[in-house]
Each structure stands twice: as structure tokens, then as C-alpha cells.
């Protein structure tokens, strides 16, 4: 009895969802095709960037070899901001056009963005110690990066606390957008606060003229970070699609190996 009920309720929902979730179904194989090129690009660019950074770029006159941390520090800081913007963008798209795929994209991006923010903070601390003598200074950039990290955490915690995926998507989207509006305000306020306080007598301005090989290494690593983020976000969005659309025919066929993707 219960079984027949089950299949009875499932049949129409599968029909509706096929119509409703048309885009995840078509996006899934596309993401799969993009996956390998992104991984290859990430690995190749990382190797090239590390080689340039460690073997071609010279030792910095003022900072010695400690400056080599920037090859991950700066790309990580960039990515943490780019990913937040991308996340907020997908959230806005989702709210406006009511597309589930964009919400899935933003939840797939969040952990990676938080990871980049953490890496930026961690490497910043390790760079700060030899460069200006302290692991942590309440510098404008570090403080805003920390708050950005908290914003990521808030988004993920809110999504995790809500069981209904529809509500989780929308509530998360709202806080992500409010956060994105706040990011420039936070950055400005912290910078202003820092200039007013001028307590710590350290300047984080980098060496004025950067050797071109250093810049090349940094840019290569930044591109590698882009490729990595794309690859891992695609992988995660595929997992999220399977989790959320597990009742649909295409996911069921996929999981049982009846279709390939």
C-alpha cells in the first residue's frame, strides 16, 4: 500500500521536475566536459607559476625571500573577493529569474571562497611576521578580509541551518546580497579607521617597483587560482545537483549508469 502511494506521488513530481529543472539536466554534462580542461589548466598554471616564483624571480632587496609568499597570498585574496562577487551575482540572478541552477552555483562557490579568504589571512599572517614584525596588524586590508571570511561563514551557516532547500537558497541569497552591498562600506570604513588610528607603525605597501618576473609569477598563480576555483566549483555543483534532484529521472539514470556524464 505504502509502496503504491510512493510511486503514485513520485510519478507526477518527476514529470513536473523534468520541466522545472531543465537547465540542471543540460548543465550537468556541460560541467562535466569543462571539468578536465579546468583541472589541467589549474595544474599546468600552478607548476608554471611556482617555477617562475621560486626559480626565475629574484630575491627581493628589502624583504628577502619571504616575499615569495605573495605568489599565493595575493591570488588568494583576489579570489576571495571575486568569488564573493560571483556568489552574490548568482544569488541575484536566482532571486530575479527564479532559477534553481544559479542558487546551486552560489552554494557551490561559497566554501571555496571561504577557503581562499582563510588562505589569504593565514599567508598574510606568515608574511607579516618577518616583514613587519607581527603576525597580525589591524590593517585595513586584513581587517576587511577577516570580515569577508565571517560573511562567507554566515552564508554557509544560514544555509546549513535551514532544511528546506528552497528557503535555504532564498535566505542565503538575501544575506549574500546584503553582504555584497556591505563589502565596499566595510572596506572603506576599516581603511578610514586605520588611517585615523595610525596606531601600528607599519606600512603594508609593497615594494614600489616589482620586478617583471615577480609579476609574471603572481599573475600565473592568479590564473591557476581561477582555474582551480572553476574546476572545484563545477565539481561541487555537480554533486549538489545530484543531491537535490535525486528524484528526477535523469539523476536516477545517471546514478545507475544508464546514461553517462
Amino acid at each position, binding site marked *: 500500500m505504502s509502496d503504491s502511494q510512493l510511486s503514485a506521488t513520485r510519478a507526477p513530481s518527476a514529470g513536473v521536475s523534468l520541466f522545472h529543472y531543465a537547465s540542471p539536466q543540460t548543465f550537468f554534462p556541460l560541467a562535466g566536459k569543462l571539468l578536465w580542461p579546468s583541472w589541467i589548466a589549474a595544474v599546468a598554471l600552478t607548476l608554471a607559476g611556482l617555477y617562475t616564483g621560486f626559480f626565475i624571480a629574484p630575491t627581493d632587496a628589502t624583504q628577502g625571500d619571504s616575499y615569495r609568499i605573495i605568489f599565493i597570498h595575493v591570488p588568494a585574496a583576489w579570489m576571495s573577493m571575486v568569488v564573493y562577487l560571483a556568489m552574490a551575482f548568482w544569488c541575484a540572478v536566482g532571486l530575479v529569474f527564479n532559477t534553481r541552477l544559479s542558487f546551486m552555483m552560489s552554494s557551490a562557490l561559497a566554501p571555496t571562497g571561504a577557503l581562499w579568504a582563510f588562505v589569504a589571512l593565514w599567508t598574510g599572517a606568515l608574511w607579516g611576521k618577518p616583514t613587519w614584525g607581527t603576525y597580525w596588524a589591524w590593517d585595513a586590508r586584513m581587517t576587511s578580509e577577516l*570580515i569577508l571570511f*565571517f*560573511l562567507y*561563514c*554566515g552564508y554557509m*551557516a*544560514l544555509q546549513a*541551518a*535551514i532544511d528546506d532547500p*528552497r*528557503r535555504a537558497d*532564498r*535566505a542565503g541569497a*538575501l*544575506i549574500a546580497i*546584503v*553582504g555584497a*552591498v*556591505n563589502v565596499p*562600506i*566595510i572596506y*572603506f*570604513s*576599516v581603511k*578610514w*579607521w586605520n588611517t*585615523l*588610528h595610525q596606531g601600528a607603525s607599519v606600512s603594508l605597501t609593497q615594494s614600489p617597483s616589482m620586478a617583471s618576473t615577480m609579476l609574471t609569477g603572481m599573475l600565473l598563480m592568479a590564473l591557476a587560482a581561477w582555474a582551480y576555483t572553476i574546476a572545484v566549483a563545477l565539481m561541487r555543483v555537480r554533486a549538489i545537483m545530484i543531491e537535490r534532484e535525486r528524484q528526477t529521472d535523469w539523476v536516477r539514470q545517471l546514478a545507475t549508469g544508464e546514461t553517462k556524464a
Partner: protein
Amino acid sequence: MIGVFLSVMRRDLLLAWRRRSDMLTTLGFFLLVTSLFPLGVGPEPEQLSHIASGVMWVAALLATLLSVQRLFESDEADGTLEQMLLSVEPLAVIVLAKVCAYWLLTGLPLVVMAPLIALQFNLTPDETLIACATLLIGSPTLSLLGAVGASLTLGLRGGGALIALLVLPLYAPLLIFGAGAVDAWRAGLGVQSHFALLGACLLVALAVCPLASAAALRIAQD
């Protein structure tokens, strides 16, 4: 529209008046937290006046967080929230009315109590005035942002910690401008820009937060 605004506000004020102890809890929390600081950092008047405005602002943030999460709770429990969602009047106006009532009940008492704390922390009359004025302009913004957090976390498990994680990062600029004004005054600098920026934050929050909070309530009750 104005009628709805006023009647919602009057209702909330009346309800709160019947449960005065809630309001006093928040105020007590504010006074208690600020009084703990001298015990923690030592009684040197110089040091205390240094940290006074920061302590007042942090205590105000925490007091707001503590109370704001219950903003929509009773309405949800007795079904009023559903009525509000179904109302023909814009939900944002109703939310704004609720936030106004909430601020009158919890934000304003903090501002009124602030001189007492300034006295404890050895601030001069000028500095006291500035600290209170920053709280007066800043605390409505705290309430407005808190309302967004409260409506997002309505009925969720672990609401208290979650609302802190959501809202505290957004409070950072207010803390900087609010607490910074007294510091700037002590350093002989103008405080106009601090007040202008606090005012700008309040206006932006007035324009955005009721809408965001209303949207969050609709999502929560979907």
C-alpha cells in the same frame, strides 16, 4: 499606510509594556557588561576613558543582538505574522513600524543610560555628549540590521549564534564610526564626518533593511 504604521507601533509598545521585564533585561545586560570592563582591564581612569566609547558601542551591539532575535517570535507564535503577510499594506511598512517600536523600547533606553556609563568611565562632558549622540544616531541602524537577521533566522535552530554570525560583520562599520567619534574628538580632530557617515548608514539602512527584512519574512513563511 500611516495608520497601519501607527497602529502596529502602538500594538507593539503596548505588548512590551505588559512585559516590561524583557525591556529591563536588555538594559541590565548593557549596564552589566559595561561595568565588567573596569574589573577586567583595571581601574586606571586614563585607560578607562580611552576604551569607554568602544566598550559602550560593543555592549550596545551585544544588547541589540540579544533582544532583536525575539522581534518576530511572538508574532509568529500567535499567527499575527501570517496576518501581516496577507495584509494589503506593504509588509516593509509594518516591519518598519515594528523596528521603530523595538528601538524605542531597547535602543533609546541605552542612549539614555549612556551618560551613566560615561561617568563610570571617566569621560569629560564633551566626550559624554558625543558618545551619546553617536549612540542616538547609530542604534536605530543596529535595530534595522538586527531585524534583517531576526527575520532570516526566524524559527531556525541555533538562532542566537546564527544571528550573531550574520549580523555582527555588518555592524563593523557602525562600530568604527560610532566609537571612533570620541577618539577623534580626543585627538583634536573634527567629528562632523563621523556623524555624517553614521547618518548615511542610518539612511541607507532605513531604505534597504525593511525591504530585506520583509523579503526574508516571506521566504521564511513560504
